[in-house]
């Protein structure tokens, strides 16, 4: 529907002032949507780099922990904690990365037979009634837990572990916000492409 407008409005824009206004509005809207999806992509790049660094930290500190224990019979709790912290953040922040490239599992038995329009309707429906409520709920419920944790400067549940446990807790509301952004960007990015084939991921 959306993509048909510029053509019709474009042809008539000089003859009818009403259509002209519509056309301008449409272009402003398009520009804003483009800006938003580009912003989401930038955000995703940053998240992806962060996730890779977290992965490397997790792998490195886990290997170091094993070597320390097995070879030198000693170990640092903070090192183990570093691995756990990195894992926790990786586990939650990798979700929006996968969403940005539409890599979350879909059961597409019926989807492959749907038309492009139908697929887009499903995606809108899924984002509006499934994704948004779930991650709004997560955001609303996890935010106070994070602020309390920050206020008391909560440290690792392990005795002798790292301080700054609130950084791990911050991962949940951050993930919720990123999921909302990436989920909306995902449907907006596809808005014009009618008859678009299914991305097989």
């Amino acid at each position, binding site marked *: 529907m959306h993509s048909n407008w510029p053509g019709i409005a474009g042809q008539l824009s000089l003859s009818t002032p009403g259509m002209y206004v519509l056309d301008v509005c449409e272009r402003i809207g398009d520009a804003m949507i483009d800006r938003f999806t580009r912003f989401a992509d930038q955000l995703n790049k940053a998240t992806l780099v962060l*996730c890779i660094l977290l992965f490397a930290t997790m792998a490195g500190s886990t290997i170091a922990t*094993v070597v320390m224990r*097995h070879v030198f019979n000693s170990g640092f709790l903070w090192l183990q904690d570093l691995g756990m912290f990195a894992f926790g953040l990786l586990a939650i922040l990798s*979700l929006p990365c996968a969403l940005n490239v539409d890599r979350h599992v879909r059961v597409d038995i019926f989807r492959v037979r749907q038309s492009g329009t139908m697929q887009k309707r499903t995606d809108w*429906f*899924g984002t509006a009634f499934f994704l948004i409520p*779930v991650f709004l709920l997560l955001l609303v419920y996890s935010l106070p837990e994070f602020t309390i944790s920050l206020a008391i400067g909560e440290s690792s549940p392990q005795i002798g572990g790292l301080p700054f446990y609130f950084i791990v807790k911050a991962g949940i509301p951050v993930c919720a916000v990123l999921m909302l952004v990436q989920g909306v960007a995902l449907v907006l990015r596809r808005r014009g492409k009618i008859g678009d084939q299914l991305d097989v991921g």
Partner: protein
Amino acid sequence: MEGHAFYIILLFASLFMAILSGMPALFAIAGAPLLVAGIGILAGSFEPSFLHAFPQRVLGMMGNQLFIALPLFVFMGLLLEKSGLARGMLFAANRLSGNSSRALVLSVLAVSTLIAATTGIVGATIIMLGAISYPALIRAGISQKLASGLVVSAGTLGQIIPPSIVLIILSDQISTAYQEAQRAKGVFAIEPVTVSDIFAGAAAPGLLLVFLYAGYLVFKLRGDTAKAVPAKEMQIEDREQKSLSLLLSPLFLILAVLGSIIFGIATPSEAAAIGAGGTLLLASMLQERQNRGSSLLSSAGVVAMLALGMTQALPADLKFPLSLAVSGIFGLGLLAATYDLLKSRNLGPVLVETVYLTGMIFGIVLAASLLSLVFRGFGGDILFNELAVNLPGEKWGALLVVMLLVFMLGFILEFIEIIFIVVPIAGPVLLGLDINPVWLAVLFALNLQTSFLTPPFGVALFYFRSVAPPDIETATIYRAVVPFVILQLIALFIVAMFPQIALYLPQLLFR
């Protein structure tokens, strides 16, 4: 509290409709329960405080030590594929088997088993087998049907043969269910079910499955006489030299991962990190276009890694300085290998893909935690318990129903959704009926093998379709998996009849 049967039915109906609509399964598994809970809250039959536990559950996922192994094994499997290590092994298998079709099928099966024992990511393994072994099988005169059946079923062995992602997720869910079942009985000194137990438990049944496949293949090819494959075709593959190091490398990785678990050096999660490090070193060592210096360092790293496993045997006065030196070489080797692989642009894509697959897995874990909260909020656990107790045949009746359900769900869902939907619900009920948790986990794992192969939504079929030559019809692929699914069900039946096949090794190793 009583169960609300109406809401539970509504919950599952909306869940399956949403999943089948084709929206990401993560949205469906988390969103449908939330919508139904919303209706329940408005009607006054759902206590909203259940939802408050959601962030806590998510935090639990983020702090689950066991789950560290998942991204690491994903990374290991992807790097094995990307670096050409696993490819080289398959080429070596083609070459070594010479010109006998029977030798070829058996060596393809053997190499798949080795890849499975290093880690084995279903998608990556099938794409490789489809691209490398399938053409060789066809050249050796094996029918399209048998060849594609072999490729898809051998490619899924990675998920039953430890270490495996399916087994890790299963052991997490089974041990939670087991604790719940024991607490319900009033037992509080619970012997935990560990992932090591489940790895050990799945080893023999996994090999049983391999032997069943092998027996079937030999039986099907019994009349075949040796066929000469033109020497020219063989030579195309001869570019891949280094057969010896290629065949030794999986053994090195198996020793590094499974060895360190069995000898008590590392927990399974730590073993996954060791395996990831080992794969990094090997990939850099065997890299085609390589920098001599870093290749030398990564080879030294491999030797150092083996040496680290044996430092306990050193005399006391030499132990500290030698260990320090060896650890230093190991660390340097890892850094050099990382640099080398980053420079050759092999590591970057693997890391990015690892993040995506990690997100995919934890997306389902996060969603499933909301599903289970809502399920409990409506008293679903109580309802299922009543249902199971009233089934005929006590534990066998309940087991049969659950196994049939898992098999049926396998036609439409992937293993990870099945585990998170079925185990938290059926697990505590079954385990309350005096079923051994390790045995149950192995039965689930064997049953889930079928979910990879059963159309229309068998993941293995999709991956194979993406690399299979266009002249092979999808219907042929569907028919090709039938005998292998039957073999999987036979293996399931054998292990169900003789629990000792699953239970012997864990008892031997860890009791």
